[in-house]
């Protein structure tokens, strides 16, 4: 129920980082233009991060996790609702773990 003191500096740092992103573009527009290259890089960074989270999970997992990833990806492709897709992935993992018992 408590806050770990060693986590507080991290929370403060990520808070500042999040605000820098929110305020930064607004502030910078007084001085610069966003070029097409910068625009593309800013849009691709989150995609890369998501891959960076998926890959270790896929490398360390086995059949339930692989099928879970597949289910989440496919459901997202068809429904375009991340919440539904995530829950489908979780349901698949839960099901496969029960089956594997």
């Amino acid at each position, binding site marked *: 129920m408590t806050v770990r003191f060693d986590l507080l500096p991290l929370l403060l740092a990520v808070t500042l980082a999040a605000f820098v992103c929110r305020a930064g573009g*607004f502030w910078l527009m007084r001085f610069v233009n966003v070029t097409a290259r910068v625009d593309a890089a800013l849009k691709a960074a*989150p*995609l*890369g*991060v998501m*891959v960076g989270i998926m890959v270790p999970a896929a490398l360390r997992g086995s059949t339930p*996790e692989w099928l*879970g990833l597949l289910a989440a990806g496919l459901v997202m492709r068809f429904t375009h609702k*991340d919440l539904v897709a995530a829950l489908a992935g979780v349901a698949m*993992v839960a099901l496969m773990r029960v089956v594997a018992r």
Partner: protein
Amino acid sequence: MNFTAAGLKRGYIAAQPLALGVLVYGVTFGLLARNAGLSIIEAVLMSATVYSGSAQTATVSGIAAGAGIGASVVTILMLNARYLLYGAALRPWLGQASTLQAYSSLYLLGDGNWVLSIKAHAAGESDTAFVVGSGVAMFLPWLGGTLLGSLANEWIADPKLLGLDFLLVAFCTAMGVGLIKARHDWLPVGAAVVAAVIVDRFASSSWTIVAAGLAGAFTAFVRAKEPA
């Protein structure tokens, strides 16, 4: 130029259809934050300060893997880099508000209320308080949802059997697939996969996230064409 209570109310009401989705999303974050080892207060504190579903999800995933301040900050910067564009796009309109009004509106800026605000402004909305009004309408259910989710986690006996330990990864997979909009997005994805597989062998998961994000951004930067 104006910043009135009426404009704030219009924004607040306009965002209500999105608020329920934010609440459910908040519950999910509360659940996965608890599964990743955050306390209830820590989860709610993070929702109140970082206020970004994808960035919080990735950061919590990093913390669970032992990420320090450096990796966490870089993760946030990459996931929220799109806000640089959002803020830049709002400049012509929100720049008419006072500095305090503008930056407090930006603190509550999210994907949903940014889109709403841009649309409303294009349709003739001139009151800059619309931005903060729609922001508050999304912020409150986000906090409430996080609290509900982290409390609900106490009642679940075996999160692993329900697959809840996979929720984080499943969410990131869904969000990642959702971000693939065109064929040219696959090249950054490929670069990120290669970077992730290599870095995963030598470093902790938190740095794998950073490496993959940078690889994706750099690839997109290099291949994009500047208009002549």
